[in-house]
């Protein structure tokens, strides 16, 4: 409303200013030749001045004076023959009102029409300071710093892992794949690294499982035949080839192996249900679980989640990542005895550019890792990740 008020005022002002000369009785302008003559007289004065200052010799000054006077005379002579700029009679009423009408009616109308075509009148401004969801630069800076550190110490597999996941979260799947390849080349990461590599390759290919991804999943299964992620994607690859029966077999065996509380269980069962339906098989009602939210979302992106993410715009993807992080945070508040979870939360916050929350999550993880028995197998790895994150978070 206030916009229209201001826009209207501005338009009225413009119209008023343009109308003033049209409504005023024009002053009688000087004759055309008078303008030339004023300048010639001015030049004569300048000449005198120059001469007084001794800038010109008398002969030069005399020659110049004669030339200017000649121009003056010429201008006087032509003045009688030439037209003046303004005809003394004011133009007729009709002509004047035509101009007034054009300005008063057409200008505001045209302005409104053009504006309504190109403008977005209803959309309020939104300054960065007023926003809660701002991007900030921390995430990009973090990545750049990490990249720079790794350029200096390319053997740091843990660093590459953090970087790979950050790339993955920000949708830079190609870079993430490169980072996973580094980890594999360093001989670290095991089946998980192969499976992760395959997963980002699938994400980069918009959900299609290409040759490289298949090789990666095969390598993962070779390293650890029980790796659920690799088995899941192996099944998905078969399904994409149209070999639904085989896919179903793989998934069914995966579901059978799955612990009852495995977060990815729901996804597998969903795929089994879909495949079975396509093949015209009976679907046991228990195998049609609800999707979205819940545990599946809390434990990081599953295959289906990633597939869903392919369809999203970068902004929506960022919102999706944020919702997953919130899910993870909520779960950790309920079951806080999970150092691995806290570390993942810290890393996620760091990626989202929330350094403060990342620091808090790290503070929650540290005592839990301390409390682990010294001989616990995961203790060393957790400790390393903690250190890496402490370095990465300012």
């Amino acid at each position, binding site marked *: 409303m206030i916009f229209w008020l201001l826009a209207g005022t501005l338009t009225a002002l413009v119209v008023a200013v343009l109308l003033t000369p049209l409504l005023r009785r024009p002053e009688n302008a*000087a004759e055309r030749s008078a*303008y030339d003559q004023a300048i010639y007289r001015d030049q004569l004065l300048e000449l005198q001045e120059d001469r007084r200052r001794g800038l010109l010799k008398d002969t030069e000054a005399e020659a110049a004076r004669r030339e200017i006077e000649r121009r003056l005379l010429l201008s006087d002579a032509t003045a009688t023959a030439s037209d003046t*700029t303004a005809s003394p009679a004011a133009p007729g009423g009709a002509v004047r009102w035509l101009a007034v009408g054009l300005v008063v009616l057409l200008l505001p109308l045209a302005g409104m029409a053009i504006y309504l075509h190109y403008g977005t009148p209803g959309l309020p401004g939104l300054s960065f300071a007023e926003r809660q969801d701002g991007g900030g630069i921390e995430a990009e800076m973090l990545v750049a710093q990490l990249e720079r550190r790794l350029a200096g110490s390319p053997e740091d597999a843990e660093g590459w892992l953090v970087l790979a996941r950050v790339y993955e979260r920000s949708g830079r799947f190609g870079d993430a794949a490169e980072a996973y390849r580094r980890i594999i080349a360093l001989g670290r990461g095991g089946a998980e690294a192969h499976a992760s590599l395959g997963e980002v390759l699938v994400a980069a290919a918009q959900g299609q499982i290409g040759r490289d991804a298949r090789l990666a999943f095969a390598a993962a299964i070779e390293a650890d035949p029980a790796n659920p992620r690799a088995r899941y994607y192996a099944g998905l690859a078969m399904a994409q080839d149209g070999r639904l029966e085989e896919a179903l077999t793989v998934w069914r065996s995966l579901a059978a192996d799955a612990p009852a509380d495995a977060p990815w269980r729901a996804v597998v069962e969903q795929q089994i249900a879909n495949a079975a339906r396509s093949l015209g098989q009976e679907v046991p009602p228990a195998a049609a679980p609800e999707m979205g939210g819940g545990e599946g979302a809390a434990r990081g992106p599953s295959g289906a989640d990633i597939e869903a993410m392919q369809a999203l715009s*970068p902004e929506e993807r960022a919102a999706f990542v944020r919702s997953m992080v919130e899910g993870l945070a909520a779960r950790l508040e309920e079951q806080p005895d999970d150092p691995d979870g806290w570390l993942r939360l810290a890393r996620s916050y760091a990626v989202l550019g929330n350094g403060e929350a990342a620091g808090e999550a790290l503070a929650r993880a540290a005592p839990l890792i301390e409390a682990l028995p010294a001989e616990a197998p995961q203790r060393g790895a957790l400790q390393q990740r903690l250190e890496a994150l402490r370095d990465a978070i300012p």
Partner: protein
Amino acid sequence: MIAELGHFALILALLAAVVQGSLPMIGAARGNAAWMAVAQPAAVLQVVLVALSFAALTYVYVVSDFTVINVVENSHSAKPMLYKVTGVWGNHEGSMILWILILALFGSMVALFGSNLPPSLRARVLGVQAWIGIGFLLFTLLTSNPFLRVFPAPPDGRDLNPLLQDPGLAFHPPLLYAGYVGFSMAFSFAIAALIEGKLDAAWARWVRPWTLLAWAFLTAGIALGSWWAYYELGWGGWWFWDPVENVSFMPWLLGTALLHSAIVVEKRDALKVWTVLLAILTFSLSLMGTFIVRSGLLTSVHAFATDPERGFFILVLLLITIGGSLMLFALRAPVLKPGGLFSPVSREGGMVINNLLLAAGCATVFLGTLYPLFLEAVDGSKVSVGPPFFNATFVPLMVPLLFLMAFGPLMPWKRADLAGVLSRLKLAALGAVVAAGITLYMEQGGPILAVAAMGLAGWLFVASLVEWGDRIKLFRVPLGDSWRRARNLPRSSHGMTLAHSGMAIAAAGMIGASVWNLEEVRNLRPGESMEVAGYSYRLEGVAQLQGPNYLSDMATISVTRDGLPVAVLTPEKRLYPVQNMPTTEAGIHTTWVSDLYAVIGDSDGRGGWAVRIFHEPLVPWIWLGSLVMVLGGLVSLSDRRLRVGAPSRQAKAKAAPAGGHPAAAE
């Protein structure tokens, strides 16, 4: 809402321009004083409206309002405030608004200070000015609108090209545009005069100061751009004959010619038709300079817009403006009355030679710039026209120009005595010999052509001062008298001396920089050093720093000569993560006779860094000379003679014959 108000103001500016471009034009043709009088308030309105629009755009940049697409594409919340503001014109759309704003500012000057112009001429000048404005406003609103919005707003922007995040480039476009747009005044006056069929005395008086102002801005803009290329690109060079540089250089060359021919028109009422043509061509080249970098024909940092729709619009706009104005010239130029006569050896004659050489120089640059583009468009073949072409064609044209520049100011109007002029140049000849001698001594020989060129610069420099010394009778009358004479001298005289000697200084810098420039690259570990041109450069270390929106590897290089410390250079290699783009910041120390210039390259991963050292003799003189030239232009502009009183309205109210077309009556 601020963005929308800016958008609305821009649309109103377009409509006001339509009114300004139509009613006064028709009024001038039909002798309707009221319609003509609309031009002045409309021109002032233009400034107010476009300024509002520009302020609105600046506001959304400053607060990082990412509901505006233009801000998303060219800004980032973490960008330093200076670059948030300069980012307004650091992109295609915003720079168009700046262009229009400057155009409107120039137009309003005619409206406010043009009381000594005959009303019909003023109305027509403002009308033509409005036509240009309409073209640009339409282009902006239809194809390059900076006020388009997006919702929901993206979380953050994509940042400004890091190369443009630099103080030098922040102020290069406004100066360059002020130069380009300044030539629109000469253009509007030329077109208005062609329509009138009459070149008034006021015409000549007005064209010169506007040309001078535009020329001073353009000189400053080009110098700043070249300085930026020098310290930011890290190549050690200051001019690359890049098409983007050339398109700003061409209007400068023709503008310089125009500046000189406008003096002849003002003083002697001669060369009028040629001056009109020059005014048209100069502005046409300015338009090309503005647009060719946006049409997608050229790719460079400047080429922000490569959109076929825009390219087509630009082509049509150029065709109408250049084609239309040249057609008008062809039709109407014969109507203009030729002016005063002069003998070939005279100041006018000198200006003609100056004009011919500058125009020829401009033509070679034009060919060298556009021929490759043309060839590629016709049969797809790529030719590379680089410095060798320009050295072989452009430089030989400039040598006689510099040589003859010494003569011009010494020659009187109308008819000159060549022998007398030559005798006054004895001192300049001495200056040439001294400059060449010093060069020989300093460089122990050196290419003979370069030594001769330095002599030429010395010749011009001394000759410029000789003319000035002559006028104040330096050393021939007591110093007090000379001082009094110097104060009495019109400012335009001082301005000319400054501009000509600035040219000599800059020329010496250009020669020195291109002939005696040294470059060396070495892989250094911290603690190691290298020798270049008698200076020892020691890499002390490389620190990793973090700026507001970039990461930097900053090297510390201490420079010593014969064991004595000279300077500490801190070249940087920066990475801007948002655009994932590296930039270099050269470390430069100037001794005013030469520049010590260091660039840090990549690390070899084993503790060594690529260090590139340039020794650049006389380079600072290029910008020093440019600065002196700009100063000369401004001093000349402040000359009291440019202020001419308006004729009194009551003067001789003769009854004029009614009716009749003013142009036809001439």
